[in-house]
Structures are given as C-alpha cells and as structure tokens.
C-alpha cells in the first residue's frame, strides 16, 4: 500500500475540492508534530547544534586564545593532539572510563540482581531509593568526602596506624580515581540494570533448569544474554559520563592523572587558555562518544526482530 493511501484519511468529498484546501490540510497535519517536538527541537538546536558548530569552527583556528580575532584556519590543533603527551592523556582517559565501567558492572550487577529478583517486593522501591540516594547530593561534595577518607591523615590511614600498620599513600593514584568514579556513577548502572533485570522472564530460567542447566549455567546462558541490552546501555552511560568527568580526576587523581576532560577544562578556564586546542579536543571527545553510541545502536541488538 502506498504511503498516502495510509495517511490520507479525508472523506472523499473533501478530496475533490481545490488544491487550496489540500495545502491547508497538509499544513494542519504539520501542526501536531511541531507543537509536540518544537520546544525540545529549539532547545537542542540552540544549546547543542549551534554550540557544537561554533566549537568545530574554533577548533579549526590554530591556537585561538580568548579575545583574539580569527585570522586563519588550519588543522594544527588536531595535529597537536597526536603528540605523545596528549595521546597518553587520551589513553589514560579511556582506561579510567573503561575501568570505571567494568567496576560499576561488577559491583552493580549483583546489587541490581538482588533488588530485582530476590529482595522482598514491597521493599524494592524503598531499597532502590536508598541505592540512588548519593545522586541527590552534589558530586563535588561526594568527592571531597572521599578525600577525607583517602588523604595521608584521613580516616583509612588513621585506622591503619591505630592497628600498627604502615600508612598508605592513597590520594593521587589511579586507584583513587577509579574508586571515586565508580562510587559516583554506580547508581546509574544499578538503575539501568534493575530496569532490565526486572523485566526478565523468570519462566525462561525455569525452562533452562528444565533442560538441565544448573543455576550457574542458566545465569550465563539466559540471564546475562537476556539483560545484555541493559548491560550495554548501563555500560555506555557510565563510560560516557566518566570519560567526560573532570571533578573526580582533578580532586582525587592529582597532577599526574591528566585526562581529556581536565585538559579541555584547562584550555578554556585553566592556565593554558588555548581555545583552539580545547575545541579540537572537545570535537574528538564528542566524536568518540557518538561513534560508541552508534556502534551500540547498530550492533548492540543482533536479533533482527529485537527483544528487550
């Protein structure tokens, strides 16, 4: 059936009228979608598309500083990223983000599993609120709380020394960054995994047991594949947010753990003040994240008809 045959639901008498009424009818058909999508569309256009295009333009101006007029264009900013120092920063950022994602998954999956499948039904909502409670406080505040735990005269070292154990240098380490970021983003992971596990058809687990699968085998062959869309979505969200986070690496990572987001911050608001380079870094970050999302959408769901 042709498209117009499906959408054209006017009575016959109206169709034979002049082309003026046809045009009016077409216009009225556009009002609905524009009312529904208009505000959000405008929002996205003004606050996402336009700024990204501005940043793309600035990234093509070699070493543009604030208040400086644009004189020439070139790819110098992008070539600068290829210097080993900055490639190391990129690699470190990806390592932090992947490490955080893996830790969130390992810590978050059992929590989400327990909440969705084992915890008593009437307590579930309350328990879920308890788990996402940290999201309601400022992330800056939460990160400062980690400093009081990890610093040289902090809570952990006080406990260690009172037990007669040597003090540990915990601040400004990769471990501190991973712990801090995992703590910050775990609630997102738990929420998404919970939503996915809650929809899990328990009859499939019975079917697996019926066919001889022990609970362990059934978990890997049924539960995990069935919740794979949730695992992918949660992983992507945590990966993207931790890649863009600069609060935790700045406060807990110290000067040695420079990440791409800290680097961007420095170019715009920190000491470097190189808007051109900062914009190029931003474009690289945005592209990397977009590619990751696109790959997930394309290959995340291999079943042609889809299941969720």
């Amino acid at each position, binding site marked *: 059936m042709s498209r117009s045959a499906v959408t054209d639901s006017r009575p016959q008498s109206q169709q034979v009228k002049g082309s003026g009424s046809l045009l009016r009818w077409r216009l009225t058909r556009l009002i609905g979608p524009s009312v529904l999508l208009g505000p959000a569309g405008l929002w996205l256009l003004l606050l996402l598309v336009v700024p990204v295009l501005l940043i793309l333009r600035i990234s093509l101006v070699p070493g543009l500083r604030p208040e400086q007029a644009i004189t020439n264009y070139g790819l110098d900013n992008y070539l600068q990223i290829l210097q080993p120092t900055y490639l190391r920063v990129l690699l470190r950022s990806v390592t932090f983000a992947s490490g955080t994602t893996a830790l969130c998954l390992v810590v978050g999956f059992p929590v989400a599993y327990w909440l969705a499948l084992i915890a008593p039904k009437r307590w579930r909502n309350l328990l879920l609120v308890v788990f996402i409670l940290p999201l309601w406080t400022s992330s800056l505040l939460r990160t400062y709380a980690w400093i009081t735990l990890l610093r040289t005269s902090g809570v952990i070292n006080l406990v260690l020394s009172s037990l007669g154990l040597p003090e540990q240098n915990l601040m400004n380490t990769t471990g501190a960054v991973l712990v801090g970021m995992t703590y910050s983003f775990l609630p997102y992971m738990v929420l998404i995994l919970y939503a996915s596990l809650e929809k899990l058809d328990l*009859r499939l687990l019975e079917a697996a*047991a019926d066919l001889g699968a022990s609970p362990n085998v059934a978990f890997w062959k049924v539960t995990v594949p069935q919740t794979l869309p949730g695992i992918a979505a949660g992983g992507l969200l945590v990966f993207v947010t931790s890649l863009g986070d600069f609060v935790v690496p700045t406060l807990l990572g110290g000067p040695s753990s420079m990440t791409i987001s800290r680097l961007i911050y420095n170019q715009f608001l920190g000491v470097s003040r190189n808007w051109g380079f900062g914009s190029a870094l931003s474009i690289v970050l945005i592209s990397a994240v977009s590619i990751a999302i696109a790959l997930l959408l394309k290959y995340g769901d291999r079943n042609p008809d889809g*299941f969720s």
Partner: protein
Amino acid sequence: MFQTASSTHAPAQEQAISDVELRQVSKIFDGEVAVRGVDLSIRPGEFFSILGPSGCGKTTTLRLISGFEVPSAGDVLIQGQNVKRTPAYRRPVNTVFQSYALFNHMTVWDNVAFGLKIQGCNRQHLQKRVKEALQRVKMETFAQRYPTQLSGGQQQRVALARALVNRPAVMLLDEPLGALDLKLRKQMQIELSTLHRALGITFVLVTHDQEEALSLSNRIAVMRDGYIEQIGSPSEIYERPNTAFVANFIGDTNLLSGQVEALGESMRVKTASGLQISVDSNQMQLPNRYQATSVSVRPEKIHLSSQRRPGVDNCFEGRVKHMMYLGTHVHCVVELTTGDCLTVLQSNQPQHRPDAQMPVYVSWSAEDCRALAA
C-alpha cells in the same frame, strides 16, 4: 465393548515400576492448600492427563513432578527414584511450557540444542539429534529463525522439539495447546498423539479441555480443589463417573438429586419431586438406604418417544420445552410432569425431531444411569 478396547490400548504392565509416582503429596503456598494428599502412579509409556478446572491444582501437581515446586508433604518418585530433594535441573524430565518459554536470544536451532549442549553431547551427535527433532516437528526449515519470527503454532513445535530432543524419561506438557486456535489445536492434538506413539515416552499432560483429555489419554486424573476426584481410562471417566463433579465436568449430564429408596436386585432412587428412578445395581455407588444421592443420566442415553415404551426401566411423561437444531443432532429440553427438566440429545432423524410443546415420553435403561455421592 468400548471400555475393554481402551484398557488393552493402555501399554501398562502391572508389575513394572511406575515412571512417575506421587505418594500423599501436598503443597501449601502461604497457607493456601494447592494440592492435598495426591496419590498418583503413572505407568511407563502411558499418555496420562491431569484434567480439571482452573485453580484445581493440576499445574502445581505437574510442577511438583518437574521440580519447580518442592512438596510440603509426601514423596515424588521418578522411575523408582525419590526425587523429592532433587533440583529440577537434575531430573530426567522435560517440560513443554504453556507460554513455550523459548529463548528469544537464540535461534530455533540453538533453542533445541540447548539441553544437549549442557549435557556435553559431542558435536556430530548433537547435530544429528537436533536435526532429527526438528524434522519430527516439521520445523527443520526454520532452524535459523528466531522465536519472535514464528507463529504461535510454530513456536509450539519448537518447544516440543526442545523437550523431546533430550529423550526424557517423562515428557511434561503444561496446557501446551491452550494458546492455539481451535483448528490448530485439533491438528496439534493429532500430532501429539502420533509423537507419543512414535517415541514411546511417558507423557503427562495438564489440561482443562475435557475433549483434549478424552481424545489423547490412556488414563485421566480428574482434579478438583487440590484433590484427585477420579482416575481412569477416558471411557471409565465418562461412562462411570464416581462423583457428580466428574459427571458434570466431563461432558454434559443430567443430575437428579434424591434418596436411595430400595436396595437389592431392583435398586431405586426417589427424587424430591417424586420420580422413582431404577438404577442398575452395578451402577450404584452407595450401599446405604436413605442416603442422599444424585442420579446422572447422559443426554445422549435418553430416548424420546411419542408413546410410552413398555419394558423400559425408566419412562416418564413430559413435554418439549425447547428444541435446538444442531445439524448432526437435535438438542431438546424436556420438562417432566414432576417439574424436573432433562436435556436430551438425539441424532438428527425425522422420527427424533419432536415439535416444541409436544407431549413426549423420555426413557432410559437402568444401566445407563448412575447414582453418585451427592
């Protein structure tokens, strides 16, 4: 007679161990009793049905056999082994679920191969058996499809193949045809029956469809409120129901409540309305005089005539209140002079087509009715 034919049909040897045995099994959920002291013994190779209305405990009984429920009391034996404490995944049974419960993240082939892979079956052997199972249910051309791409009937076949490929000691079927439309259901019933004969495996079917149970089973257990009301071959259940519930649930029947009036050679039941019904002594379940009882007469056993028929045990006068033309049959409601109403089913022949309001005589012989516990 029909009964004897069906009893030779049952492939049981009395001394063989039962494939499935339930001994005084009960199951209580949060204070609600779902199954009460059920005793069952299912013979090897038998097609056994558990029949009853929804909420009678039939599915719970099946889940006690498959191991998804642990009995609150009693023992479950499979091929002589007490499996009361054996988890579902170690029991030699496979289930076809009402919802099919196919793994939608796997192809049809992987669904069917699932059980064999877990058993650690070698590659060649696995491929041969999966192919064989898919052929058996005529789904071999759909091997690479996903379950969501199949129709309900096709999913049903995959679910069957996924269970039978493991060659279980017992196949458990939980209302497997419930979600199919009538025509497909009839077709699948025939295929189930063929499959049962070809495989020689014990089938345990749970259903609320009495026709399905009658047409497929060697024996049927009728359940009600967690109890087993009666176990017997389809003809036993239909021709000689033990209780009014069974008589009413399996097919249509006329129930006339009354009291046992006379015992001995000529047993009689007298209804409150004053009918005196002769019941064959073999059909009498109740030995006590004055005991309350219900007499069950099947509509097709009642004879309609315009004159009183001499020499018939039970013959009463009445008039046709309603008549429904059903094509092969004519369905009448006859109101007796005593006020009792009887449903009568007559084959469609000119002499059996009375007009409404016509005075008629209904008659049936003593052995065609049965006095049951009220």
